[in-house]
């Protein structure tokens, strides 16, 4: 699936990933390939992106995540 992590100032990550873990307001939330459409608010924490090459972590201060048609868009702050 395609993952985009964008902030108002820049784009943090954009590309293929096998899994994403985001800090949802009600607890950590894992998103795998072919996840159902979802919109969730995020709190401060780390976003973990698992790609074929390994794991990447991105610090965010809150935001919102949208999953649609196998595309994950994280609007971070």
């Amino acid at each position, binding site marked *: 699936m395609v993952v985009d992590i*964008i*902030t*108002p*100032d*820049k*784009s943090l990550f954009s590309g293929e990933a096998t899994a994403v873990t985001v800090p*949802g*307001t*009600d607890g950590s*939330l894992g998103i795998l390939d072919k996840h*159902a*459409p*979802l*919109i*969730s*608010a995020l709190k401060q924490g780390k976003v973990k992106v698992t790609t074929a090459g390994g794991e990447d972590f991105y610090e965010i201060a*809150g*935001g*919102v995540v*949208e999953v*649609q*048609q196998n595309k994950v*868009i994280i*609007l971070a*702050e």
Partner: protein
Amino acid sequence: MANLKEIRSRITSVNSTKQITQAMKMVSAAKLKRAQDAIVQMRPYASKLHEILENLSASLDVSENEYAKERPVERVLIISITSNRGLCGAFNNNVIKRVKGLIEEHAGADIKVLSLGKKSFESFKKTAYNPGVGYPETPYEIYNDLTFERSSIIAQAVMDKYVEGKLDKVYLVYNSFKNAAMQILKTEQFLPIVSSAPEDAEGNESKADYIFEPNKEEIVTELIPKSLKVQLYKGLLESHASEHGARMTAMHKATDNATELSKELKLKYNKARQASITNEILEIVSGAEALSG
């Protein structure tokens, strides 16, 4: 015929002015590129956020939100976004003129003008519209380091005042960036938020059946302040890029004018030089004739 020395010194001064305007044009062109990149970077974020919000407000009444409450308009804040520096044509004057127009429109209400940019700040600081306590004291410093974080602080201050009931309406006046040669003056209502009219059916087909986590209401209350902050930041970025575009155009025109002027002066100079030579020859010839005659 003007004297030669005078013309020569004018040519030098016009040429050095031309060099300055040319350099300023180059600087603006380089800065414009960066400012433009910032907007391009920002636009997908803004449009995605707007899309999600629209998606939510289609199925949820947002008019009950604390940022959407309409009140009788008694206290108005106008956020006027200009540049810190001049020499960019009518760029700043357009904004200031529009702000003054808005002030007239709301005659009778208590109006304050929050100036983001020195030009507007200077033109309103000695008036009754100066916002005074409770607002960032020198808000034009934002341009020293234009980031989302810093613009959020200002947005948050304004939003808090609105929620407390100290403001009833907030406008945003800025130049939006169309292309390097064109800026469009925009007046937007910042608060209370205007809920966009339900879109036509064509936009709906792509909407999936979302799972909302934790629930719609909470997401909306989280997203609305965020989208307001983004709106202000977008205004700032647009104005910033427009400023450089406007300055580039203004400096380009100035350079052209200087070239024209220097050409004219050179012609004048050559004519004067020729006239003085003719005069001299005439004097010599007539002198020689008088001697031989």
